[in-house]
């Protein structure tokens, strides 16, 4: 109801954010960054964090994603205890990682494990963009690589939800080489004839977009997700012109042949389930 008031009378919808923060009780309500509608978080959660007004897909935390994707209670996490080291003795890196651990209650920017979707077992990795922008350093690369190896051991499919700003600068070439490491692990998965579904969510850019996230047997994205190699600002500086609004969106990539499908969060679990079943006719047959 509140949403209706604000969305219809646009004037009131554009409350300056600072003021809005004061008026919107923390943790109770939120504003859609796309249509500016103010809504109850509880309602938003019920709708899988998709704005009822405009369809904007709000970011999910890794565990929210897992809850929405896997069969209830089926998730078993791998390698929970890995945290960032500081191979370059980079200023403030460990402090910032610690702050993000505190803030997100996650140990790193990816959660990996196994579970079932509509009864079909799968190994899964989910990135969380709140932790160091979801950037890939040694821990992210290692956890993904180990998850892929678990899939190989267990003869299972692998699903990866990407949400990342790219490589983790503070780990320098260590982070760059995680691109090669995760891709090399996927080569091993390919050799065994196992399925990899890459789900690209907002945002998937830089070194993550240019490695495992683009290497799915099937590449799926959520609507509106920003996906691309180079940063928008860098491109604009290079070409000295403004880019169209839809540039590097999931829809743009679909149009340019880079994706198999753009799937709404409301259909995503079912779509993944169907794909898994089609690749596991025996195991999925009874479901």
């Amino acid at each position, binding site marked *: 109801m509140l949403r209706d008031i604000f969305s219809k009378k646009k004037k009131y919808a554009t409350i300056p954010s600072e003021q809005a923060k004061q008026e919107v009780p923390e943790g109770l309500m939120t504003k859609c960054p796309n249509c500016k509608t103010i809504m109850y978080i509880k309602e938003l959660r019920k709708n899988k964090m998709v704005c009822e007004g405009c369809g904007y897909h709000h970011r999910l935390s890794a565990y929210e994603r897992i809850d929405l994707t896997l069969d209830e209670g089926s998730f078993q996490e791998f390698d929970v*205890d890995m945290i*960032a080291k500081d191979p370059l003795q980079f200023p403030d890196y460990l402090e910032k990682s610690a702050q993000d651990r505190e803030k997100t209650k996650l140990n790193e920017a990816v959660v990996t494990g196994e579970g079932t979707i509509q009864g079909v077992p799968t190994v899964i990795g989910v990135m969380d963009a709140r932790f160091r922008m979801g950037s890939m350093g040694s821990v992210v690369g290692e956890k993904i690589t180990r998850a892929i190896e678990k899939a190989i051991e267990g003869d299972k499919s692998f699903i990866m939800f990407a949400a990342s700003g790219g490589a983790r*600068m503070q780990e320098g070439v*260590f982070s760059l080489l995680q691109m090669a*490491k995760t891709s090399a*692990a996927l080569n091993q998965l390919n050799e065994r004839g196992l399925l990899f579904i890459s789900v690209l969510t907002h945002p998937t850019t830089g070194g993550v977009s240019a*490695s495992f*996230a*683009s290497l799915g047997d099937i590449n799926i994205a959520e609507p509106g997700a920003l996906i691309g190699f180079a940063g928008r600002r860098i491109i604009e500086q290079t070409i000295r012109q403004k880019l169209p609004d839809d540039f590097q969106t999931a829809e743009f990539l679909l149009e340019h042949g880079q994706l198999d499908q753009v799937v709404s969060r409301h259909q995503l679990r079912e779509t993944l389930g169907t794909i898994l079943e089609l690749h596991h006719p025996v195991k999925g047959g009874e479901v």
Partner: protein
Amino acid sequence: MADQLSFEKPIFELRNKISELKTFTAEKGIDLSGEIEKLESRLEQLEKDIYGNLNPWERVQIARHSKRPTTLDYIERLFTDFLEFHGDRLYGDDKAIVGGIGRFQGQAVTIIGHQRGKDTKENIKRNFGMPHPEGYRKALRLMKQAEKFKRPIICFIDTKGADPGIESEERGQSEAIARNLIEMAGLHVPIVCVVIGEGGSGGALALGVGDRIYMLENSTYSVISPEGAAALLWKDASLAKRAAETMKITAPDLLELGLIDGMIPEIRGGAHRDVDQQANEIRVYLEKSLKELGNISELDLVQKRYEKFKNIGEINHVSGPIAVK
């Protein structure tokens, strides 16, 4: 002088002075050989001091030197019967990457490398050595061809990065790079990579998934340019010098971190001082590595390559209670 880097100024000044004295000697017939000798030994010491203690930012400048030898300079010197092959068979021919076949000490090999220009005109033609997707796809086509005919692959890495433009995004720059990473990981032939200039980010790595990764002493390999890192970290691109140090992008730093297999010594003052001699230094490493890799079976090669990359990473573990959901 454009070729002169700021930290080289004392060397160039002294060198000029020596040549002035020599001219003077010749013109006036006055014997200054004692003085010249003294200055020459001082020059020798000065070069040792300056070039022997290069800081990361000075190495970056040498790596970017306008006269620095490129892939084609080394191809000309290291291989015989080189034939350049063009095109990705899908879209076009990207001149920021050159590739082809030739012989290395009699053995047929495939050679691929980033290619910069040496002047503005050539740089425009070669997009400053920054490949579009079709460049990476050409490289991959040539690598697959090498695998079919069981030829080792030699890659020269020398790019600021992959092209960041609209068309590159439209044609799938991310996919092109990612595809090279996964395909290189699985190739059944030896791959030797040499970073000869700048190894910029994913655009460099797309030719860099090899069994051996060497760097010339004054080359760099980085996840982001020093300028880019400074802009992102400290909102100030002029702090690039500091970023070059912090990011550990030089050959000595990366060798110490165990991220590369070897550092190829460079001619004092930089590879551009003597390209022939620099090529000889590279030849030693190619010869040695191709010999070693030639003795490994195809399957072991792929497995060892996987393990090489799998082992890269530095990780801690939380002690005590674990933060779970």
